[in-house]
């Protein structure tokens, strides 16, 4: 995608198989062995599907992980080495799957949350996992030998349902976003105690004025995007001191040009922001190359209306290929 030509978003493939809405997607980050991209999807049919591209370029569903979660699977995430898949469910558990002997098997079940788990995220080192729930807490788990996971922190502070957690791309710093409209940053101190080092709110930090649904970091870790029911995307400058993310001198607040809810946003490796929304559109934004006096500005590259027949629940850039995949509310 060059700066001069007009950008276009074209549907390349349609993956069908789920029998209920698809909530979330995750690309396997492992790029070696020439095996081609692998995608995991999960949803209301309580199943997780693994999709691979064959040599002829066609996509097929290679595995269905079912009969394990007994409610909606809300989110899934691959470990950094691509060998493990974590799935978070409304059944209050998080399951760890390992690919072995040609199939995925459940190697651990993380229990403890009081009700629905909404999101799961692996730290860049692969040794820490974070989960969050409607019980308003964020849990941090440490991987031990033999597929054991020990809970090392139960983080309280949010006053409502926590929607998503995401680790910084290379620091052991965790961000959570919530139905309570705030964004919290968590880090540990010299005594390995985890605590909240920053809360980004509407009143103090030009934060969101409604439910915050999602966040995404860029590869360099100096930019974070959050999206909310207030119909805006906010870009945060997280370069200087990560325990103090700020939005710059003037707060940068984007309109997705959507009249409804934004459900997902994702930054590509080239710092292009893709967002999907409740008005069925996908927008792509980029940072202007020429820096203005007031700070970085962003422009809309393209807006694709009716990308789906219904709400867009999740958008994700494929790490290997310059294309974006999205999942809709219901796949028939």
């Amino acid at each position, binding site marked *: 995608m060059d700066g001069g030509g007009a950008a276009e978003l074209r549907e390349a493939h349609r993956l069908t198989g789920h029998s209920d*809405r698809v909530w979330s997607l995750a690309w396997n980050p492992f790029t070696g062995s020439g095996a081609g991209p692998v995608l995991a999807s999960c949803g*209301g049919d309580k199943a997780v599907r693994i999709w691979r591209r064959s040599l002829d370029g066609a996509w097929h569903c290679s595995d269905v992980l079912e009969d394990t979660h007994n*409610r*909606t699977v*809300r989110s899934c995430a691959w470990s950094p080495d691509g060998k493990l898949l974590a799935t978070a469910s*409304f059944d209050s558990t998080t399951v760890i799957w390992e690919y072995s002997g040609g199939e995925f098997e459940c190697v651990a079940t993380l229990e403890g949350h009081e*009700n*629905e788990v*909404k999101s799961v995220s692996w730290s860049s080192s692969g040794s820490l996992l974070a989960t969050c729930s*409607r019980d308003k807490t964020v849990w941090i788990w440490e991987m031990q030998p033999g597929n054991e996971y020990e809970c090392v922190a139960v983080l309280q502070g949010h006053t409502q*349902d926590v*929607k998503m957690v995401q680790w910084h791309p290379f620091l052991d710093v965790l961000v959570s976003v919530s*139905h309570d409209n705030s964004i919290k940053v968590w880090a540990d101190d010299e005594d390995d105690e985890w605590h909240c080092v920053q809360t980004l709110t509407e009143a103090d930090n030009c934060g969101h004025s*409604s*439910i915050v649904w999602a966040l995404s970091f860029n590869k360099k870790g100096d930019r974070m995007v959050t999206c909310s*029911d207030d119909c805006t995307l906010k870009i945060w400058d997280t370069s200087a001191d990560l325990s103090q993310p700020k939005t710059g001198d003037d707060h940068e607040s984007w309109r997705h040009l959507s*009249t*409804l*809810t934004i459900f997902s946003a994702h930054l590509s490796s080239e710092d292009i922001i893709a967002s999907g929304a*409740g008005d069925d559109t996908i927008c792509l934004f980029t940072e202007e190359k020429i820096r203005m006096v007031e700070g970085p500005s962003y422009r809309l590259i393209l807006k694709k209306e009716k990308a789906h*027949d*219904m*709400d867009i629940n999740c958008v994700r850039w494929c790490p290997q290929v310059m294309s974006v995949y999205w999942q809709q*509310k*219901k796949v028939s």
Partner: protein
Amino acid sequence: MTVGMINANPVVHERPERAAHPHAANALDPLDVFDTVRDIKDPEHPYSLEQLSVLSEESVSVDEKLGRIQITFTPTVQHCSMATVIGLCLRLKLMQNFPPHFKIDIKVAPGSLANEESVNKQLNDKERVAAALENPNLRQLVDECLCSNF
């Protein structure tokens, strides 16, 4: 769960005459939407939402061009703990009867409920709605409210 009813003596209204109303065959009339929800049973009392004045024809507005349905309902008391259940009933009934591309907004009438803002937020949080409808006890209560005949 509270012991005893929130509102033990609700005001019950006569079931109004149902006049036939002419409208274009393909248009989505707010009255069609109202007809779908008026007979939903209140979770606590053996009366419909219409009979208890929780809903009326004015409760519904439709924007067919934008594909949106909006319903505003009035709980019978300011501290109604059943407001979220009523909201769920409304949403499920609409989801079952109208095409999935319709965006549905459900709110309590302004000033009608003490914790209005938090209830409206929950009722329109699609993730909370999905999880609530997967809760077997809650789902059973909602299904009972939807199945009643008046």
